[in-house]
């Protein structure tokens, strides 16, 4: 086997390999660092942070479903002040690039978060989670509407020079249009996809399995949905994509790259095996070779149409 270099550049950021930890599934990185060598992953996307601390949703917050899980954490987090004071300084210990994820209820909140985080330093980039209710516009999620998505992206772009990846939901009629709006508004890249809205009910107690009734579906169950989103957005924009949704092994990573992802994120699979990302990285060179390539970049968008 020829030596395959796994390093990639994405939106000007150099990563030692294309495998990132997905937002919200590896906390602030340090929890996972107790049980695996997190310095080996390409990067860590931290859980979404908001301006004020958030308590999140009523319990139960998670439930297993076929090939995945539902979660309704509700963006519980310590707020940006504590984040900057307590979390940021320790991130350098992780030994790998770190991306913050920001979430807000108003365009202004996103702008403020972005400028505060850039000023605080220590981050490789920002992920902008637009799957949040826009409280000034009747509570419909930013990411469901092209103009609301544009507004958020522009506001972040104006207030922050960190490379910005806009994280979209697939639960829209035409994701490529939202992606295009994000591109025009100044996004450096896309992160696809967030969880897919869903619910589950206990057939005996008749209660919803989540306290918030509905939640977001993640895990291998959604992989086909995520791949289609990546493929469509890759073709519709010229933005680099962090692809994810159900990645379980190195072959899944190849699938996402072929669909157009430059890097990938691993979420739910980490729960089944905290070391999964590292197993994937260990197997990636061989998988790239099986796909007939000699570097990860050669595979990006390289699906052969029949």
């Amino acid at each position, binding site marked *: 086997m020829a030596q395959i270099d796994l390093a990639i550049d994405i939106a000007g950021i150099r990563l030692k390999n294309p495998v990132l930890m997905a937002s*919200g*599934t*590896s*906390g*602030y990185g*340090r*929890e*996972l660092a*107790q*049980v*695996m060598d997190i310095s080996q992953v390409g990067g860590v996307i931290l*859980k979404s942070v908001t301006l004020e601390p958030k*308590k*999140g949703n*009523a*319990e*139960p*917050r*998670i*439930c*297993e479903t*076929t*090939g*995945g*899980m539902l*979660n309704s*954490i509700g963006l*519980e987090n310590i707020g940006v002040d504590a984040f900057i004071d*307590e979390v940021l300084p320790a991130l350098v210990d992780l030994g790998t690039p770190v991306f913050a994820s920001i979430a807000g209820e108003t365009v202004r909140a996103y702008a403020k978060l972005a400028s505060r985080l850039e000023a605080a330093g220590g981050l490789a980039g920002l992920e902008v989670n637009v799957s949040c209710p826009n409280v000034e516009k009747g509570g419909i999620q930013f990411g469901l509407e092209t103009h609301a998505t544009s507004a958020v992206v522009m506001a972040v772009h104006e207030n922050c020079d960190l490379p910005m990846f806009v994280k979209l939901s697939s639960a829209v009629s035409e994701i490529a249009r939202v992606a295009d709006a994000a591109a025009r508004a100044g996004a450096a890249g896309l992160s696809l996809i967030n969880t897919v809205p869903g619910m589950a009910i206990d057939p005996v107690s008749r209660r919803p399995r989540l306290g918030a009734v509905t939640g977001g579906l993640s*895990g*291998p169950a959604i992989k086909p949905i995520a791949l289609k989103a990546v493929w469509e957005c890759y073709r519709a924009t010229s933005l680099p994509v962090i692809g994810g949704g159900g990645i*379980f092994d190195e072959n899944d990573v190849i699938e996402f790259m072929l669909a157009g992802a430059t890097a990938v994120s691993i979420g*739910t*699979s*980490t*729960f*089944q*095996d*905290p*070391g999964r990302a590292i197993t994937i990285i260990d197997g990636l060179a061989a998988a790239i070779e099986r796909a007939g390539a000699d570097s990860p970049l050669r595979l990006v968008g390289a699906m052969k149409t029949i």
Partner: protein
Amino acid sequence: MADLLSLTRGALCECSLLAREESGAGVFLLEFAVEPGGGTPEAPSPGQFYQVRCGSGREHMLRRPLSAHGFALESGRQKVSFLVEAAGWGTEKLCSLAPGERVSMLGPLGRGFVLDGVGKALLIAGGIGVAPLFFLAREMERAGVAYDLLAGFNTGEKYYKPLDDLAGSVVACTEDGSLGTRGLVCDGMAGYLAGGYDAAYACGPEAMMSEAAGACEDAGIPCQVSLDSRMACGIGACRGCVRQGTDGSNLCVCSQGPVFDSRNVSWRK
């Protein structure tokens, strides 16, 4: 938050089943050996738990939390045991493992029961809640703490016989009266609590723990409870296991718990 992290001493390890015994109807005592090669976890303390991967493949993405029920170090080899009630896919899968089969475990995790300064304790177990409390009882024997144990089961068929071998006195009851007194484990608890205990420890169904906690509060005795919650990461990263605290705060069951001072817990209705 730094103190929390210092409590997460879990390691990822492969364990192979040494022995499996049906200790009561649908309840199995499973003894595992930690295989060398993977991580070397610390010894669990009573109340700590492991996140157990119950099968392979992609259908079931979440591990299942199980309290440590016993621990031994024999010629350098860690042995961990669990008492498991077959309640669904994962626990059924574990309860039908054959000796030699392997599972991946992450643990020990969380904060266990605290014994500091306790002279005489009351342990209150409901059903499978006996799993960590039996381990605690053994630990109390080692530590020279006196204890009595109340244990309630649905029916005598679920009774855990090794309770008979404990040094402390055990009072058993069953809902159907087929063994011990007929009734729930908390029936008449107020009376027991007059027995000069300086701490209580409870594990069992939510309603039982909340009743036990209430009785202890009334009697002015601090009570530690081991909470149940569905878990994803098991290490404080996902916030999926969070329950409500009485002061409006969030209790992270996997990393701050699963054992909490009962006064801090807001009980589910």
